[in-house]
């Protein structure tokens, strides 16, 4: 047993233990040892998991690339007929990377939460939930088969729900949690349908179906020949999985829950709704790239959905005033970039953006959380401003992360985003590139708008608050600074060839994730998919083609750098240098209307309200009317009928039965009274009576015998 095989199972188990301890005994622990030590306990298990993850990674990279895939079998789980699902973990370069992101950023955010959640009543509950989330997320990442992945997938959805509604005493927060949960359910339905489809068709041709990724990889080619209702099976299955990813990773049309999810505590937004859970969809496509590579139509669909998501959510981000909402729409937009990369077959670029985005977006969210705490839970940027002097570490960290997200040269976002845009141009279409390129400029604009509104200019908060603003304690700002530093430097992991690097990150992932060499649109045209399978060797021809494009690559890169700097400068001009110009422009009616449209999020929520919620409510109304009129009518009639019968029987009882009983009593009383007169003791009446009887006898004798 190597170190990896022994240690990896502990990675998800440790946070689970932490969650259980804190969940069952947390209240008592907090009462006895205090808040700080409870927090330490909460951070301990993710910390240990992070140590194991990093150690395992360093063991992994010493191995030969071919030997870097481990399957760690724990125990059997579901074994019915052909189905044989096992408790098994898969540790390979992709899951190793995700483990480091999840445990590393997770640990930093745990430490940050100790400061952020300070003085919260349910301190222990928060750490219990977030530990449970880590356990579920690690299960999702490590699962060797679709069923375990789905288990983790549902687990993170549950924890997301619990944590969004963490302050559930406010009904808005509880509503936001419910919304996230319901939207995720829509996606999960797609995911589980995909699993069923794969199982159904595998079980028709094979004796054993484990649904593990290795097995699916081997069988993907064979399964691609199957079809369901005249459509290729893999296209349908891949579409189902992408619907799952839409829900979890907030793509059009299922993205509306993510901005509302900002109702949760900020560490939750940073960890779950920026760095880890929402990228699960990207990870899932990367994990099953072989399946998506055989479904070029779905890839095209993915890339267009992603580009639209990327663009529209970025535009909404321009008009938000809630600092966390801006970051939320930014997250949706950045997820769009990742899916854009996935959609054009540049899987490693998508996962690389996942990595860099996890760093800079977590830093941004934690920075915003720091600002929010400093301003006593104010989130409106119109009440901020000038905070850089008071909060230098937070401010400069956020500026560094903003440089990364805008793609400033040599920061991480620069490498990852340009890689995606380049692949979108080459393997997608210039239109996709243009959308992504525009969105990159918008990103730069709204991020600098956020920075200038928050950290520069005059303070717009009231004086009392302003006097109390101070930099947060070390355990809050140090994690932010670490992540901001990572956001600046992570890009050097994957310097592309044309910049003199050797795409180290892509090579690292190559044993498990291989990029498409050919655009998905061309895959659709070519009839025989087998020849153009992902593992196709690069021909000399394609090499020469790539060299020809070096100049184009440089051009596009310089264009996007200039464009993002330009939009950043616009933000600088409007929000720092000359707010008056902004006010003049905003006074035009068209500008007002445009701003209103954006700040009202294109009325998508209202659209959902009309298209989905209103009909459902109407159906409910009909059902309720049916209940009230028909069902209640029957019930009421039965009741009325019973009452009526009861009345009749009551009359019968009262009059006849009681009458008999009372009558008997009355009769005996009456006759008793009557007879008692005979017993008067008066000799005269006795004699009178006997005389009458005697006369009667005589009369009888006279009539009968004479």
């Amino acid at each position, binding site marked *: 047993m190597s170190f990896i095989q022994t240690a990896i199972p502990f990675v998800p188990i440790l946070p689970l233990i932490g969650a259980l301890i804190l969940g069952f005994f947390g209240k008592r622990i907090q009462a006895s040892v205090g808040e700080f030590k409870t927090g330490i306990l909460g951070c301990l298990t993710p910390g240990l998991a992070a140590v194991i993850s990093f150690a395992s990674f360093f063991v992994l990279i010493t191995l030969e690339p071919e030997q870097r895939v481990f399957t760690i079998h724990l125990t059997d789980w579901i074994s019915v007929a052909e189905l044989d699902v096992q408790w098994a973990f898969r540790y390979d370069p992709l899951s190793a990377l995700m483990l480091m992101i999840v445990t590393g950023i997770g640990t930093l955010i745990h430490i940050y939460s100790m400061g952020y959640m300070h003085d919260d009543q349910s301190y222990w509950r928060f750490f219990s939930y977030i530990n449970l989330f880590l356990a579920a997320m690690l299960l999702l990442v490590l699962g060797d088969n679709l069923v375990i992945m789905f288990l983790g997938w549902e687990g993170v959805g549950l924890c997301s729900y619990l944590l969004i509604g963490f302050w559930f005493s406010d009904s808005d927060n509880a509503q936001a949690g419910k919304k996230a949960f319901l939207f995720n359910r829509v996606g999960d339905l797609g995911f589980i349908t995909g699993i069923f489809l794969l199982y159904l068709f595998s079980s028709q041709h094979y004796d054993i179906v484990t649904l593990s990724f290795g097995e699916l990889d081997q069988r993907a080619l064979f399964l691609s020949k199957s079809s369901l209702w005249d459509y290729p099976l893999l296209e349908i299955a891949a579409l189902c999985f992408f619907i799952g990813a839409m829900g979890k990773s907030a793509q059009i049309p299922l993205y509306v829950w993510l901005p509302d999810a900002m109702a949760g505590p900020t560490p939750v937004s940073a960890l779950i709704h920026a760095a880890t859970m929402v990228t699960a969809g990207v990870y899932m496509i990367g994990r099953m790239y072989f399946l998506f590579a055989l479904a070029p139509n779905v890839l095209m669909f993915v890339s267009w959905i992603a580009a639209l998501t990327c663009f529209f959510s970025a535009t909404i981000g321009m008009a938000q005033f809630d600092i966390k909402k801006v970051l939320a729409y930014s997250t949706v937009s950045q997820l769009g970039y990742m899916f854009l990369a996935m959609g054009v077959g540049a899987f490693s670029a998508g996962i690389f953006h996942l990595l860099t985005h996890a760093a800079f977006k977590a830093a941004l969210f934690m920075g915003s959380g720091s600002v929010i705490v400093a301003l006593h839970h104010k989130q409106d940027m119109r009440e901020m401003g000038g905070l850089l002097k008071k909060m230098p570490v937070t401010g400069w960290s956020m500026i560094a992360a903003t440089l990364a997200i805008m793609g400033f040269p040599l920061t991480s976002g620069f490498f990852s985003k340009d890689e995606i845009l380049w692949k979108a141009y080459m393997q997608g279409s210039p239109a996709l590139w243009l959308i992504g390129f525009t969105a990159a400029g918008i990103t730069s604009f709204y991020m600098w708008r956020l920075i200038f509104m928050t950290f520069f200019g005059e303070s717009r908060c009231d004086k009392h608050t302003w006097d109390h603003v101070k930099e947060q304690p070390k355990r809050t700002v140090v994690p932010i600074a670490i992540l901001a530093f990572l956001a600046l430097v992570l890009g050097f992991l994957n310097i592309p060839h044309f910049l003199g690097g050797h795409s180290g990150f892509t090579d690292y992932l190559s044993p498990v994730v291989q990029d498409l060499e050919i655009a998905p649109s061309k895959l659709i045209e070519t009839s025989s998919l087998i020849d153009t399978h992902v593992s196709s060797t690069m021909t000399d021809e394609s090499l020469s083609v790539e060299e020809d494009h070096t100049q184009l690559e440089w051009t596009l890169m310089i264009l996007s750098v200039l464009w993002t700097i330009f939009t950043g400068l616009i933000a600088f001009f409007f929000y720092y240098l000359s707010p008056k110009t902004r006010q003049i422009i905003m006074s035009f009616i068209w500008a007002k209307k445009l701003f209103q449209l954006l700040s009202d999020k294109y009325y998508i929520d209202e659209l959902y309200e009309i298209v989905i919620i209103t009909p459902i409510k109407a159906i409910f109304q009909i059902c309720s009317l049916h209940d009230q009129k028909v069902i209640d009518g029957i019930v009421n009639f039965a009741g009325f009928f019973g009452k009526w019968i009861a009345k009749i029987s009551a009359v019968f009882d009262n009059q006849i039965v009681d009458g008999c009983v009372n009558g008997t009593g009355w009769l005996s009383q009456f006759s008793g009274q009557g007879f008692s007169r005979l017993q008067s*003791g*008066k*000799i*005269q009446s006795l*004699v*009178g009576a006997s*005389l009458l009887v005697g006369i009667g006898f005589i009369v009888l004798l006279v009539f009968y015998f004479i």
Partner: protein
Amino acid sequence: MILDGYLVASAALFTLGVVLFLSKKNAIAILMGVELILNASAINFVAFGKFTPSQGSPFDGQIFAIFIILLAAAEAVVALAIVLAAYKEYKHIMVDQYTKLRG
């Protein structure tokens, strides 16, 4: 002279006795009613003894009447003694108010 006249007179006398016996509250009046009934029966005996005498002993009726007179005298003695005793106890002779022996 025929039997019917005697019998009618006897029945009338009997009826008067019965009415007197039943309607009066006064003990003396009741006793007078009883005397009338006894004498009505004595008239019957005498009348039947005269008009339908039996073969061996032709004066049975008349002798029976004498017995009735005797009996009536005895009865009157005893009853009047009781009335006198009751009068001493109650200071009146209204029989319906003699309730001490009521069960």
